[in-house]
């Protein structure tokens, strides 16, 4: 039976990311007067959009107990191709092109992971290097500039909300729908929790895994487009190590690295939390040496709380075998 104190601590741990977010907001609101301005929150959402979009794709991969380390490289390849060869494309066409390149990148990953059965970590680590190498080769390591239509997307908006935030919101809604109300969404959790069991239950595991890596690549391309439209140019550092904030956002939002648990809403929330901390430190004019310390401390706290939650949940869901008083008495009589 759950004791009331266990229930209380479980409730706290369940809402740990939200509580952490509230604590961060309250702290910065006290210390930095302009933090609570509407425009500042709009900035936070706009700046976290690219990481959040990529984190949605990564969440699906993590739900399968997989990983995709090549998302940053895919972003760079997409930006390099779009900036070098299709600079004057209208923004929607550039967006479609970059997501298509991202999808192709994801399909290559999926081909090796599903087709040849190579571990996702190895495959995506390899495509990380291949992708960055390809983009460096295409750009000759030079800075690649975004065209004016793409820049206009980065600066523009609708109903006072930036296009980047609209894109993030649409991706999130679609992903939520897929995750909650489609067989594919349910398959993700089933495969992540028990791959062999899922296969025996008739779930098309290979097809689902293939589609998930393609989806992750597609969203990396889309995230790359949003980022490219904001920063105006892609140098050789574009997308570099982007996989880390993306995975951190998913983990902060409660997605397990071991599969079967979590969701896209939490990941978007995680991306916003990371950007909120970054934003608050700038507003405070904090010592730049503190930035990595504070951000890594928050990620550490979130992961620690998550592991505690997992431990308590595991304890509570463990099967309780209660021996009826009469049974024990009958056993002793029989012997």
């Amino acid at each position: 039976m759950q004791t009331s104190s266990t229930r209380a601590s479980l409730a706290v741990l369940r809402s740990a990311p939200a509580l952490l977010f509230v604590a961060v907001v309250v702290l910065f609101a006290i210390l930095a007067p302009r933090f609570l301005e509407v425009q500042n929150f709009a900035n936070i959402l706009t700046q976290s959009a690219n990481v959040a979009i990529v984190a949605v794709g990564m969440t699906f991969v993590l739900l399968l107990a997989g990983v995709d380390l090549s998302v940053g490289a895919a972003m760079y390849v997409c930006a390099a191709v779009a900036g070098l060869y299709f600079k004057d494309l209208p923004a929607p066409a550039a967006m479609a092109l970059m997501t298509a390149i991202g999808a192709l990148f994801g399909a290559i990953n999926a081909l090796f992971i599903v087709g040849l059965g190579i571990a996702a970590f190895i495959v995506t680590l390899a495509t990380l290097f291949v992708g960055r190498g390809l983009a460096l080769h295409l750009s000759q390591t030079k800075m690649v500039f975004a065209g004016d239509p793409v820049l206009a997307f980065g600066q523009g908006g609708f109903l006072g909300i930036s296009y980047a935030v609209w894109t993030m919101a649409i991706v999130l809604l679609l992903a939520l729908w897929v995750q909650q109300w489609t067989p594919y969404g349910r398959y993700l959790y089933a495969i992540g929790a028990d791959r062999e069991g899922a296969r025996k239950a008739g779930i098309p595991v290979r097809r689902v895994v293939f589609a998930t890596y393609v989806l992750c690549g597609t969203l990396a391309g889309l995230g790359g487009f949003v980022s490219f439209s904001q920063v105006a140019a892609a140098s050789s550092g574009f997308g570099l190590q982007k996989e880390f904030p993306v995975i951190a956002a998913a983990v902060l939002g409660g997605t397990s690295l071991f599969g079967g648990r979590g969701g896209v809403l939490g990941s978007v929330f995680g991306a916003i939390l990371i950007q909120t901390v970054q934003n608050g430190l700038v507003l405070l004019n904090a010592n730049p040496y503190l930035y990595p310390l504070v951000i890594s401390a928050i990620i550490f706290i979130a992961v620690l709380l998550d592991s505690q939650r997992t431990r308590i949940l595991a304890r509570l869901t463990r099967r309780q075998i209660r021996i009826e008083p009469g049974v024990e008495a009958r056993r002793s009589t029989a012997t």
Partner: protein
Amino acid sequence: MNVTRRAFNLGAILAAGTVILPGAVRAADEKTIAIMFDSLQSPFWVTGFDVLKEKAKAAGYQPLESISNLDDNKQFEQVQSMIQKKVSGIIIVQTDSKAVIPAIREANKAGIPMVHFNRPPAESDAKSSAVQADNRAIMKSTVQALVDKARKAGGKYKAAILIGDLGDQNAIQRRDGFFDVVDQNKDIIEVVARISTEWNPDKAFADLTNALQANPDINFLVTSSDFLLPQIQQALKIAGKWKKTGEEGHVLFAGFDGDEGQYAALKDGYMDVGGVQNLFYEADLAIGAIEKMNKGEEVPKLLLDPGFVITQETLDQDRDKMWGYAVWKKANG
């Protein structure tokens, strides 16, 4: 026709000699210099690479080039390959100041002089020389020129600085040069934003946007590198502050490096002052150091480029010394 074994062997030796000898003679005559960069990730490095090749040719060397794509192991193998080719010297831009030390030792063993271009190696007993811009001094002069303009215009200023990677000595020296000056002018300048960009354009854009949101009265801006200009322009545009000198809301703005973006921003009136690394002088220093070391002369561990400061007012007279102008001219005719 019958060919005896002796005739065949003689013919083979003659044929081989015909092919190999001219090459060997040419190799003996031809002096080569290895120009080894880790990447060409900004206009500074692209132009530096080109200028070094031109200067090497002008000094009578055939340049042999390599790019390691930020891979220290690959660069070490490239150095070994250049040593095999018996180059007269190696000019190198390494990614990691410590990882390059085994490569210096290999060059020392082969008796081939090595010069580090713009990035000195970590302290060690390995023998090499480095050419570097005097980052702190150039930044000091640049910020001083901007402060002079601020004093001339009058009023109080809220300043922001875009700092580079805190693990990069060049970035730290530039940051220190900035504070050397602003700390002496606290009566008119208050630093309200120290933005750690980590040389990441994404982060530079986001954090500058945030700083401008928190401090809409920022009117004094210094960047530690011109390669962030596209992001600075974007952030200032969004804040409605991308204005020319003399226009309402203009931000006093200084750049650092001297690339074509800096030239264009100065020419168009968006930037007020630029710190320029004298790339042509640095290339001369590097080639000269190789030649001196080959003659057995002692060369200091660090050769400094004092650089110079350029302003909108001095642009026309000094632009020919500015490497970014050469790039801009090539691109714009």
